[in-house]
């Protein structure tokens, strides 16, 4: 009984949240359209949380994803403002993510700084760079090409169901699939889990721990940059702080997911549930006219409850 509560408590909580909103918003909540909305609303957070899972599998953290998301958006927007084509801006934004991520990896695995400290440092650095290159300004309006902001507004029409699946949703699902495949079905992912299971044992068993950690941080940086570009496209603008709220939510989503596995390991499909819980609360509580400050209290309480339940009987 307690075992089941521990393992499935978060999933049950998720189901309860869905049922609760369904009961209170009978006409609007459980509609294809609302769920497509939610999927689009959480897509940026989802991409960042999914790729954050990659480093958290090793027991590491990346606190710099929020500033990285801002920086990649700013990079792309600056190039747009200077007349470069959309593709160049996108590639440059992603490249910034890879470089920044690899720099995090370099600090953590080669220099040997604790991830918390290393990425706290780069969080500030990347944010500073974003302010520096943008002069602290928001880049918007004519500087942002329609082709770029159109990405967030396009979608795949499914005439049979009379719905349009937003492109951002498809992108997030694609990232989910890739990360899931990488972590669960390749030797690379298995080795990351091994590092998380016992760093020293993995090293002595011939796992190239430094190289893997470097690559993993690079991937997290890439995901942060992609999330940042999606965000910039959605708001059709870029400013040096717009991604900063994503970092804590991403870590919270992974933590919520970790409460669902037997040994408390991050799993990317569980991270998805974590992301959805956060997104559903935003969506449903708004529709129920609940104050947004109350929403924050609730989110905090739910994370604590999930972690408390999953550590029941552990002591």
């Amino acid at each position, binding site marked *: 009984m307690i075992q089941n509560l521990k393992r499935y408590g978060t999933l049950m909580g998720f189901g309860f949240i869905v049922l609760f909103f369904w009961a209170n918003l009978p006409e609007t909540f459980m509609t294809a359209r609302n769920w497509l909305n939610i999927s689009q609303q959480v897509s940026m957070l989802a991409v960042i949380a999914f790729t954050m899972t990659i480093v958290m599998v090793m027991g590491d953290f990346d606190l710099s994803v929020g500033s990285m998301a801002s920086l990649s958006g700013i990079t792309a927007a600056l190039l747009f403002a200077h007349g470069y084509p959309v593709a160049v801006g996108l590639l440059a934004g992603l490249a910034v993510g890879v470089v920044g991520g690899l720099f995090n990896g370099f600090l953590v695995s080669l220099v040997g700084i604790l991830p918390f400290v290393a990425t706290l440092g780069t969080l500030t650095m990347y944010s500073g760079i974003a302010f520096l290159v943008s002069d602290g300004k928001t880049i918007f309006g004519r500087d942002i090409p329609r082709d770029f902001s159109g990405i967030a507004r396009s979608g795949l029409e499914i005439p049979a169901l009379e719905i349009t699946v937003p492109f951002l949703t498809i992108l997030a699902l694609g990232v989910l699939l890739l990360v899931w495949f990488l972590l669960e*079905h*390749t*030797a*690379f992912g*298995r*080795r990351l*889990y*091994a590092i998380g*299971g*016992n760093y*020293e*044992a*993995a*090293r*002595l*068993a*011939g*796992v*190239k721990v430094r190289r893997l950690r470097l690559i993993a941080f690079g991937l997290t940086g890439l995901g942060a940059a992609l999330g940042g570009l999606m965000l910039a496209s959605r708001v059709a603008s870029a400013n040096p702080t717009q991604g900063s709220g994503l970092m804590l939510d991403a870590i919270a989503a992974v933590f919520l997911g970790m409460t669902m596995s*037997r*040994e*408390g*390991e991050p799993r990317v499909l569980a991270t998805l549930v974590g992301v959805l819980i956060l997104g559903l609360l935003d969506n449903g509580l708004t529709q129920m006219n609940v104050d947004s400050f109350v929403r924050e209290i609730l989110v905090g309480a739910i994370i604590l409850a999930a972690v408390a339940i999953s550590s029941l009987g552990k002591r």
Partner: protein
Amino acid sequence: MAFLSLQNVSKSYGAAKALDAVHLAIEPGEVHALMGENGAGKSTLIRILAGVTRPDSMEMMLDGARVRINGPQDAYDLGLRFVHQELNIVAHLSVAENIVLGRAYPRRFGVAVDWKALNRQALGALKRLKITHIDPARKMARLTTGDQMLVKIAALLLDDGAQAARLYVMDEPTATLTGDESQKLFDVIRELTASGASVLYVSHRMNEIMAICDRVTVLRDGRHMATRALSDTGREELIHLMTGRELETAYPPRLSPVQERVHLSCTNLSTAHIADIGFDLRAGEVLGIAGLANTGQSELLLALLGVDKPKSGRITFDGQTKRHNPAAAWRSKIAYIPRERRRDGLMLTRSIIDNITLPHLKKFTRAVGVQSARHERAHAAQLARDVALKSDSLRQPAYQLSGGNQQKVMLARAIGDAPDLLLLDEPTRGVDVGAKYDIYTLIRALSAKGTAVILTSSDLPELTGMCDRILVMRDGKQHAIIDTTGLSPADLLATFYD
């Protein structure tokens, strides 16, 4: 006349009976050995006594009165004290602080810690055990493991304000200790029993049990087999009680002669921790590494694995040098089992399969990097059979296994890619008699197939019984290489000293 008795102790985990109507009685002032193979139920019984695990049933009498243990505090109030193998020490605090840990520090003017008084209290506790060689002001981290354990025992003594200790339970206390350190512990045990307390002593080491224990209780498969006075019980009888079988010769014989081909060659090798190592190892040969505690045995293996880089000299495998890192080593069929398997070997929360296949994941990679879970499972299952691993399922996390079975998981990992060189650091430490014999048999079988084996051990009969030659180390340097033909453990011990 027993002051403490347990009757009808049972505990089941699902369908498996960990303890089945076991009984145990302790007399005042005795050292009572608790023996049995790994998984026989010793740990469960101790956890029940400590109040950590709830038994399904138990009748417990103390001084003729019925008592209950519902938690660790109850165990403490009844006068039970526990010395665990894994020490809970705070390494960067002083000996004295470790002794008073959890109690109020003596103070001056109500605020400042009174260090003099603190050290005096600690010294008093150490003196009660006639321990004079430990300075209370030293940092705990700078003590040997053995001295750290003595300090923990002294801390238990200091704690005896409310209820005097009646029984000290020691779970494999000597597993991490050297011979000298063990002797000091035995002196302390004598001090404790002289003052009227009793000791429940769990160990796999027959010699120790014969030397210091008065009576023994043997468990097998969760059942009580016998309680005897050790003065009229023989070794063979004890092994028979524990394993249910007659043990053949202690060490299985070599199956085929050592091959001519030199597999590994070290010339004048030095690293940050060891110096002047030079030997040739032939295919199929078993080389022992011996010496006093911490004179570089583990570090020699780490140098061969490529963890410690050579400062001078060279290592060649089949005449070729290789890159010095563990990944390159495993790739060229060098396998390694670390001394501290829980700390450096196992991923405790991960499955047996994951633990076995960790260095060999490449084997199961199919197109575009996809892992074949089916092949991996089949491979792990085969290896688990090869090492006679006992588990409910290969998906069980490693922490649920007994020490012996955990070591078998490490062995299964090591033999997973048919290694040419096997590096074993204390492979039988904390492993029961039956599992030990399985490990010896496995070493012989590998050696017959041409695998060269290097093995460190603090168990001297094991070295002389299993190895073809023994490299004796002193202060991190190679002192001698001895052929084991006709070598007795006593002869070997003599080479450790000048």
